[in-house]
């Protein structure tokens, strides 16, 4: 079991302060490492999507590029994903405000995480609906370069969202069991990751929508 109270502002001083107060085992260095880890990971993901984007720009410059009309359900999906980011942020703030004493805060945060989870799943279902919509129009992966990129980018984004959903399932379970079973850094990092997925989706959506 481990506790952590490191705040991004001054992790070291806060850690030592807490050490004196609680005299518990601290894993602050590892918490800082996982914070670095999540940013480094997001950097790698950004780089991958930058590579896909540059491939898209090159491909868009060739002669056979045709624009497809994107399914309108995508607007709904975008709103759902952005809403899920908002609900997770509510949970994060509730937890931050109640940490490390109240367990009621943890339960309320857990409820918001659960809501985020549902919204995340709804987003995935919505993306699937968008694919079915395109299929119904006879637009498949290999139909046109535009459709190739649309299917590919949405699929790879969805795979990343699934990783986030797995983390949310874990967090929701832990929060229901009470905050003491939770590493706060894990929660913070999941929130960063999830927000990133929202931003990434907005970018990808615009990328697929725009007509150069």
């Amino acid at each position, binding site marked *: 079991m481990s506790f952590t109270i490191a705040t991004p502002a001054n992790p070291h001083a806060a850690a030592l302060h807490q050490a004196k107060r609680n005299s518990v085992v601290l894993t602050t260095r590892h918490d800082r490492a996982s914070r670095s880890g999540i940013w480094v990971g997001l950097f790698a993901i950004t780089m991958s999507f930058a*590579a896909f984007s540059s491939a898209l720009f090159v491909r868009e410059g060739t002669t*056979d590029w045709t624009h497809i009309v994107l399914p309108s359900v995508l607007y709904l999906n975008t709103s759902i994903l952005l809403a899920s980011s908002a609900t997770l942020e509510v949970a994060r703030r509730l937890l931050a405000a109640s940490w490390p004493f109240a367990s009621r805060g943890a339960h309320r945060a857990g409820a918001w995480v659960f809501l985020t989870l549902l919204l995340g799943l709804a987003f995935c279902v919505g993306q699937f609906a968008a694919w079915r919509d395109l299929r119904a129009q006879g637009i498949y992966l290999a139909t046109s370069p535009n459709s190739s990129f649309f299917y590919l980018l949405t699929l790879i984004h969805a795979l990343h969202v699934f990783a986030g959903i797995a983390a949310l399932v874990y967090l929701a379970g832990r929060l229901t069991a009470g905050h003491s079973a939770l590493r706060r850094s894990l929660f913070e990092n999941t929130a960063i990751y999830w927000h990133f997925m929202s931003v990434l989706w907005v970018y990808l959506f615009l990328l697929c929508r725009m007509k150069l």
Partner: protein
Amino acid sequence: MVTIVGSAAVLERGDPMAEGSVEQAHVQAPPEGFLRRYVFSLDHKVIGKQYYGLALASVFTGMLLSWLMRIHLVWPAARIPGLELLSKGGAPGGIITPEYYLSLLTMHGTLMVFFVLTNAPFAAFGNYFLPIQIGAEDMAFPRFNMMSFWTTFAAWLVLMLAFFIPDGPPISGWTSYAPLSAVGRDAGPGMEYGMSLWGISIALFCIGSLLGALNFIATTLDLRARGMTLMRMPLSTWAWFITSCIALLAFAVLLPACILLILDRHAGTSFFIPAGLVISDRVQPHAGGSPLLWQHLFWFFGHPEVYIAILPSMGIISHILVNSLRKPLLSHKVVIYSMMSIGFLSYMVWGHHMFLSGMNPTSALAFSFPTLTITIPATVLVLIWLGSLYGARIQINSASLFALGFISMFVAGGVSGFFLAQPSIDIYLHATYFVVGHFHMVMGVASLFGVFAGTYFWFSKMTGRMMDETLGKLHFWITFIGTYCIFMPFHYLGLIGNVRRYQSFVDDFMAPYIGWHKFITVCALLTGAGQLIFLYNLIYSRFKGKPAAENPWNATSLEWSIPSPPPWNNFGGKHPVVYHDPYQYGVKGSKGDFVMQDSPEQVIVSGD
């Protein structure tokens, strides 16, 4: 007269004892059970050794393939007993077909670049020594670390599988240029399934490398011991850290490229295949793609990959050289900044692989300039190594010989880079043996010299036994002379116009120069056989070598402050405190002419 240049009282981050005592309570149980200890181990040291073992298996396989290629080049009708068992179609009756020569070439390049030059100096030694050199108990994410190795191992298995399928390994070379790599069966033997295995293997390799790089970066940033500031990290750690930053960017681009390639091959998309392409008398059912796109994506990875191979070796040999010189390098910081500049510039030069690809000639000039610029930090490094040698009483042993050999290879192979970096000269030299000689020396053998140096230096720490020095020196001289005998003639053959990847020169205009090829082949066979000495030394010393002391080289960095081999938690549950810069040599210490990084004693330099 006595001058005090360092003080034990200087600590950068808070009171060491407060944090140390708190963290000492954090005790984990040692791993139990055979699987957890030796197979799916979370211990960075075991994972490092696993990477080393994988690199060792790959390097000997790759060497065997190069032997087969060299034999085929000069004696095309030679029968290789038993080869027909591996591939009925590729070597009927044990005689290598032209296509199978290309298969061997592809597998040689892929194994060597990915599974040897990336794995051995970076993943193997980096995993083993980076956490120890910064005073950490393990990597930041041990589970990712384990996944990283096993993903890489899966990648290796998938690649090796290509040897055993009826289709055989792909014939596209390690760069797998589109569109031939993207169209499938029509592109020749090995291109239907073998090529797909290649794509899957490299995609897996990317994932493994990304996990590894992420771990290295987070570990270096956040798990350093008290007092271990960034500038107090040994040069080897710096090199691994910079390399992991490069690898993170590079493999994050190669992975999408492999995904696009696999989709083109199996899902009917056209990312890389242009319209109206006729291959093997068949119009390809794709349209609109850009073969140049693959080259851009591949070389955006591919050139940084060159530095992923060489930078760790630069760090390793710097680390070893300082120890053998018994005095610091001319500048610790300039070495670090030079390696950083190389890492940064490595992203601006990928187009120099594509001068003749049909790319705009103006962009060729734009890529030529940073390519020539990158020689500046490389030259600075060489000058620092050579300048530090001046006036030093270097201790000659196998490790320092290979470190010196590295400099020799790096300079000899690097000089030809000046020629290739200029588009006007590259038009003539492109795709000749000049290029092959260049990169084999500067990236391949130089990097391997770093691995050899690291092995002779750190073997005692990794196993608790010393390697045999006589065999080590013999191994060095055979390898050193052999390498020059093999790759120097490559340059001359390239200047004559000897094109790479041709499977035979017997009936061509190259016929008068077949003697050179025969000489190279004989040298390659002998030098390769010389590597068996190394293998023997490795295995013999592992079991029968002289027991090693904790610090046999009188070295200063943290890995020498713990037992050989280190316990599973490196520092026995304690957290070391660092008081000094990494290379306090040539000083008056309590143990001799050096002061270890974790020694609280004051550093006293004697002068006159």
